[in-house]
């Protein structure tokens, strides 16, 4: 049995406390009036930071090209009269600045939720494919997926608050915006708050249901005399994968793609999937290595770590494949209604946009190529940290441009939110790891997994 070390527990609580503090600072420092927003940005520019922000405000004409402008029809109307323009620009600025702590919260909440969902999908694949190497890690995976419940609740609460207009994360939830936007009106059959919440509830309910059922069957199998529970679990996993294939795509349209409600891409769901998988597998590897280093997983050997690292390597490349396919096809055809998505990102998010490709592709490609390195624990941990940071930035890049535009920064609110969710994640996952023995007893493949050697 695993005992949650006090140091880790205190560490997680400290992270959460720091996180709450950081997020609090973020929420209190938002402007409440357009004038205040204007003053904040001007003061910020005077400090000599953010040259691009200054450029944006010095060239109001450029705002016409800004895709966000199209999403703020009130502002678009303002373009007609030069004199009104300044005021509507400030209002736009205010919305962006007000969104920042919310976006920071949402990005971090989604990132940690996505990790446990990715682990759940990986776990279901391992069960459905009757893998012989991984049963030894099932308890670790089940521990990580326990975060689905708190993580899902937080996400759902954020959605309810969004629907109640506590923030402007989803423009299409704002009836004033919709009233003047023909394109969003056309999508209202799908993008409407009630249906959105129902869908979110169905997705979350389905995923959590599978997680709980599978966990129960997995534990029951340990005490059973036959393989009935194992077979049942196999069926549930196959069924879940079908449900997941459909709901994961829809989830990414709902929760992320609709932040830019004018933009669409058919690949998007699978792209988010790749990001989810690679982060999930990375966390499995990191938690496994941590537990092993504390002596809790005596039968896990470096072949298991090697396999996990291979998956980290493979899915990093797969992620890049999908990232490039989506980016290149839109760049190549250069159709105005789609290309704005990448235009804003390349103009305002140059470093995070291309930096994440280095972190999520070039780095894992180079360091995880060598077979020997994939067996070195600290090496896998180091690579894992870079991959996780890279995929946080990936989510950041997907969410921020549509909510805060060029007013982004990775500062106190963002880091605070990451700390807070990292704290809950660690607390919840490791607490659930203490509840049952870390090694399954009667899985039919457990002997294969214990003898696994590659």
């Amino acid at each position, binding site marked *: 049995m695993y005992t949650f070390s006090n140091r880790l527990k205190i560490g997680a609580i400290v992270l959460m406390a720091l996180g709450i503090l950081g997020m609090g600072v973020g929420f209190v420092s938002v402007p409440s009036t357009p004038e205040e927003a204007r003053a904040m940005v001007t003061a910020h520019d005077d400090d000599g930071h953010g040259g691009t922000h200054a450029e944006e405000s010095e060239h109001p004409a450029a705002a016409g090209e800004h895709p966000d402008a199209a999403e703020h029809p009130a502002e678009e109307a303002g373009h007609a009269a030069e004199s009104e323009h300044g005021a509507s620009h400030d209002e736009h600025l205010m919305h962006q600045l007000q969104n920042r702590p919310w976006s920071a919260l949402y990005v971090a909440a989604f990132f940690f939720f996505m990790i446990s969902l990715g682990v759940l999908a990986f776990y279901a694949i391992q069960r459905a494919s009757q893998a*012989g190497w991984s049963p030894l890690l099932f308890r670790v995976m089940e521990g990580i997926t326990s975060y689905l419940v708190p993580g899902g609740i937080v996400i759902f609460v954020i959605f309810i608050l969004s629907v109640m207009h506590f923030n402007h994360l989803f423009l299409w939830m704002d009836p004033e915006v919709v009233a003047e936007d023909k*394109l969003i009106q*056309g*999508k209202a059959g*799908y993008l409407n708050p009630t249906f959105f919440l129902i869908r979110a509830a169905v997705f979350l309910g389905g995923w959590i249901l599978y997680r709980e059922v599978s966990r129960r069957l997995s534990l029951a199998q340990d005490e059973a005399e036959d*393989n009935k529970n194992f077979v049942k679990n196999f069926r549930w996993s196959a069924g879940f994968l*079908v449900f997941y*294939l*459909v709901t994961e*795509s829809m989830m990414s*349209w709902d929760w992320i793609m609709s932040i830019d409600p004018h933009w*669409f*891409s*058919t*690949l*998007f*769901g*699978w792209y988010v999937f790749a990001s989810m998988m690679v982060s999930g597998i990375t966390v499995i590897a990191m938690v496994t290595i941590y537990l092993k280093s504390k002596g809790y997983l005596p039968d896990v050997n470096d072949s298991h770590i090697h396999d996990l690292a291979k998956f980290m390597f493979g899915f990093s*490349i797969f992620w890049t*494949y*999908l990232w490039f*396919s*989506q980016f*290149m*096809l*839109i760049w*190549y*055809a250069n*159709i105005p*209604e789609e290309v704005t998505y990448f235009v804003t990102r390349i103009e305002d998010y140059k470093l995070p946009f291309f930096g994440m490709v280095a972190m999520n592709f070039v780095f894992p490609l180079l360091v995880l190529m060598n077979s020997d390195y994939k067996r070195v624990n600290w090496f896998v941990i180091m690579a894992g940290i870079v991959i996780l940071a890279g995929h946080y930035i990936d989510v950041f890049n997907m969410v921020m441009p549509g909510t805060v535009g060029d007013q982004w920064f990775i500062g106190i609110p963002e880091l605070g939110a990451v700390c807070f969710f990292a704290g809950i994640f660690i607390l919840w996952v490791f607490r659930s790891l203490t509840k049952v023995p870390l090694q399954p007893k009667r899985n*039919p*493949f457990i*002997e*294969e997994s214990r*003898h*696994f*050697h*590659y």
Partner: protein
Amino acid sequence: MASHYEAPIRKPLVIGDKDYHDVSVDIAAPIEGRANRQWWIVFSIALAALLWGIGAIIYTISTGIGTWGLNKTVNWAWDITNFVWWVGIGHAGTLISAVLLLFRQKWRMAINRSAEAMTIFSVIQAGLFPIIHMGRPWLAYWVVPIPNQFGSLWVNFNSPLLWDVFAISTYLSVSLVFWWTGLLPDFAMIRDRAVKPFQKKIYSLVSFGWTGRAKDWQRFEEVSLVLAGLATPLVLSVHTIVSFDFATSVIPGWHTTIFPPYFVAGAIFSGFAMVQTLLIIMRKVSNLEAYITVQHIELMNIIIMVTGSIVGCAYITELFIAWYSGVEYEQYAFLNRATGPYWWAYLLMMSCNVVSPQVMWFKKIRTSIVISFVISIVVNIGMWFERFVIIVTSLHRDYLPSSWTMFSPTFVDIGIFIGTIGFFFVLFLLYARTFPVIAQAEVKSILKSSGSKYKKLRDASKP
């Protein structure tokens, strides 16, 4: 190195209590024996189709592309449909030999050789189309960036059609090398068994003096692993690049970002269906039922079911996003697919690709050889229509209603397609009589862990 322990619940992969010698004898039998009358009949039919196809190709090239059913609006139809179809079929071979190797799937050992042969032969068919669909195929060498007397006039590297040239040629060469390295120990086995001097000479030549020393085996395994690691991204990228031919364009119905992974999924789907079709016949006529068991057929059916579901998910995604996009051209493109003049093709594609593989959820059906065979053919028909629907329905009605038109193939279009099917079977039939169709060296490596004889021995020794 894999462990020596195997979970008792895994079913044997080689049945009929074979030992090492039985494996050699069974696999060498078709090569050492003589072709029977059925083989000659089928071979003649395939050869006749090939000759007919050659005639159609010569007629096209000497008379002009106008002999085909293409028109000014629909300027790609059967040619590129067949091209993508054949490339797609080829993908299963690499998937079985490379991806399943990376995932340590032991059951691939009985089917990889034939799957790779299928890859090579179908990529050859695919490779014909980019040449013969050119207006001036004798200038085809201009696609290659070679220094020349036109002030070193080069190709433009921005075209996916040029990427196709690199993709297909690399794919064919890597697959060929991968296949041939795997064949060395098997050719050596045939060489060592040969009694006729001519046969001995030939198999000595093609086996490159393989003697099977420990060092050779060690390097052999390493090369296989590296090639598998290279072939996996290659197989994904090849069909991705084929999909770029459409997805980089601005045609509604073509320009969509999901094409790269969805074409690849479709390729695996159709490729596995083709492997299924061929192997169900092969295990019967070459008496290889002990190696290609019902379990193999079931596992291939599961892959067909999984990739069929992924393809189905992609269809629905495309439909949804077409509506969601609010772009009326995009919406019309899909409305036209479902209700336009080619509705029947769309319906056929949907029912063959989305509905038919779903029956594999029932164990009774996926372990039935007859139904598997039927479904595998249905899937290949469906996948042909998928390419046809994507290409033709997007082209025949796009932005300007004044250029809307229809497409119907001529006998030359059809003749060339039949010719490639003939060519494929000519190659495959020759292969089945001269090559070891199962990788005996690999099957022998799993015999003791997964052969029924040894499984029984293990079970008997347990209390």
